[in-house]
């Protein structure tokens, strides 16, 4: 790391470390990419561009691929055939396999113990390091910022750039620090905090910025919770979200498959800790949030910032767009959204498909039943999460409660593999986007935490999970 006298933010330090050619009035910076993650949906046209130019991937050793978006979450039939939703979906997965073989890129394929949703899989393999530059043709690449990496989503043209040159053309975004003071109350999850942060920033409020999350409440989060927080930075319009690496970061990474070998690990860890923002470093903008007032949250509109504490009256719409969103959701201003029957509950995604998320959901469901008429689907974020959950018996808890226990994948988060919410149905989902039709044409989505999702499955209406956890404590 080059030494500099000026105090720098973590983002500045990571940026500076990756500048191949500095930006000028005429051209953006050329940035070097340490880790390029690839999945089946946003890569085929990029590989086609390389083929058209007769080029091979420049650094297959810095590239890692998985299949997650188009993949069925139901097991293969007796003949071994996977139940792909369409031939196109099957062909897309096949195309990635062919491209990876041709370019010598590691692929977490069907038979791999590593396979998973790209942003769940890479951190658990130890591919994501503090201070690294991580990109993927996927906007939720922001997740990896939880490790103090600079990580953001890119388009397919840029996927081609990175494949061919390991570099990216970028203008430097501005710096925003979101300081979260205080402590989260019992029964309030990282997802609740995340939704509260987005509600405070507004849907486009982070636009043009890289966010650093700082403060006592952020320090107190474990790595999985930090990933939930960073994951949804893009929902406030920000390019990336970052949390300074600390002892929790180091403890999480130690011993994972792709971290530096044991004899050099401690040296790497010491260097990683140096990425934290220097005292006195300047941000372009600062926002402060008090964690101690955050309650379990749920969205009521069709953008992720339209969120309120569960049970609070839905705010009166302030614009035509907000009015239309309420109309689409079938909710009325001034009323709580807890009166509407829920049809579908989804637990999973790169926001909340990790083991701690499944534990939270299972803790509510244990000994209870999903209300009749509600369909609940649980898709672990990766094969590793699935194995761990099964070792702990969480799969039994879900199945005994009447939920469907699926194979790892994006599933109902993006609804392109056949797992979807039917037109008009109301879903409580632990994913990250409640856009019109995101979970299927006409689907109405409420975003919430895993515990809220599970409590809502039991009650059949959107429910503050603390009602269930308190009841158990007092039993």
């Amino acid at each position, binding site marked *: 790391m080059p030494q500099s006298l000026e105090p720098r933010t973590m983002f500045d330090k990571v940026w500076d470390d990756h500048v*191949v*050619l500095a930006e000028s*009035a*005429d*051209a*953006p910076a*050329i940035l*070097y990419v340490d880790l390029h993650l690839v999945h089946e*949906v*946003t890569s*085929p*046209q990029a590989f*086609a*561009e390389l083929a058209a130019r007769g080029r091979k991937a420049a650094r297959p050793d810095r590239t890692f691929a998985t299949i997650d*978006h188009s993949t069925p979450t139901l097991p293969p039939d007796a003949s071994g055939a996977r139940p792909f*939703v*369409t031939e*196109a*979906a099957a*062909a*897309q997965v096949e*195309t990635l396999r062919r491209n990876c073989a041709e370019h010598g890129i590691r692929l977490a394929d069907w038979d791999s113990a590593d396979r998973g949703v790209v942003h769940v899989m890479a951190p658990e393999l130890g591919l994501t390091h503090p201070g690294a530059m991580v990109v993927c*043709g*996927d*906007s939720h690449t922001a997740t990896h910022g939880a490790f103090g990496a600079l990580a953001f*989503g*890119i*388009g*397919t*043209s*840029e996927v*081609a*750039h990175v494949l*061919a*040159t*390991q*570099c990216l*053309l970028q203008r430097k975004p501005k710096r925003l620090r979101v300081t979260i003071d205080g402590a989260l109350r019992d029964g309030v999850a990282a997802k609740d905090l995340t939704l509260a942060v987005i509600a405070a920033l507004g*849907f*486009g409020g982070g*636009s*043009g910025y890289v966010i650093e999350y700082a403060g006592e409440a952020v320090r107190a989060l474990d790595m999985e919770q930090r990933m939930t927080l960073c994951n949804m930075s893009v929902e406030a*319009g920000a*390019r990336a979200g970052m949390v300074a690496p600390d002892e929790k970061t180091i403890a999480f990474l130690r011993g994972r498959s792709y971290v530096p070998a044991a004899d050099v690990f401690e040296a790497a860890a010491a260097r990683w800790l140096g990425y934290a923002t220097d005292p006195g470093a300047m941000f372009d903008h600062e926002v402060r949030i008090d964690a101690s007032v955050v309650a379990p949250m749920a969205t009521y509109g069709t*953008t992720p910032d339209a969120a309120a504490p569960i049970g609070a009256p839905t705010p009166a719409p302030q*614009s*035509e*767009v907000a009015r*239309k969103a309420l109309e689409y959701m079938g909710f009325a201003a001034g009323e709580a959204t807890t009166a509407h029957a829920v049809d579908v509950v989804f637990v999973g995604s790169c926001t909340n498909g990790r083991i701690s998320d499944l534990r939270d959901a299972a803790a509510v469901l244990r000994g209870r039943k999903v209300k009749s008429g509600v369909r609940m689907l649980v898709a672990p974020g990766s094969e590793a999460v699935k194995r761990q959950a099964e070792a702990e018996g969480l799969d039994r808890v879900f199945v005994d409660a009447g939920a469907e226990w699926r194979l790892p994948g994006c599933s109902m988060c*993006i*609804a*392109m593999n056949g797992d979807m919410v039917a*037109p008009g149905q109301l879903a409580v989902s632990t994913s990250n*986007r409640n*856009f*019109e*039709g*995101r979970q299927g*044409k*006409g689907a109405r989505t409420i975003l919430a935490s895993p515990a809220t999702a599970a409590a809502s499955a039991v009650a059949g209406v959107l429910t503050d999970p603390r009602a269930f956890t308190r009841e158990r404590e007092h039993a």
Partner: protein
Amino acid sequence: MPEPFTQLTSRTFVLTADNIDTDQIIPARFLTTTSRAGLGAHAFYDWRYDHAGAAITGAPLNSVDTATHRVLVAGANFGCGSSREHAPWALLDFGFRVVISSSFADIFHSNALKNGLLPVSVDLRTHGQLLAGPGMRVSIDLERAELRIEDAAPVRFPIEAFARRCLLEGVDTMDWLLARMPAIHAFERGAAS
């Protein structure tokens, strides 16, 4: 490589909603393609077709003639959501060449420029005027970075210098990066030592 862009005079087609996200522009279920072509058929699909797949009568997107209406005017924060480049591919294939709004989502903006779909950001007053008057004749001059509405005086719009040059001169960004491989290799050697 995108078609070069210098100037365009055309009529506007208006979608007033703010926050038109990439799931509206091209719903996820159409992303299983491995090609860039043909996505116009699925652009704004759920706004144009009903649950049974029949064209919705009266949906303005079903009657717009993009030969004469090549400029999409949309509400604020256009293109928010995912990083899918399928969104600008779909808009271009549908027939739009320019999108005008008061603000654009970051990744969409970058993706659009790389494909020759010009995102033009305008001030709120100009935006309001365009939203209120569908079908206006507008001229976009990229060389001067100017937008002219009907016969009014032109207004300047911001455009990043490199993207502008690439569009005007047809510079291919991949070629530009490849030409800098020696610097990239030097960086790799430096990082390894």
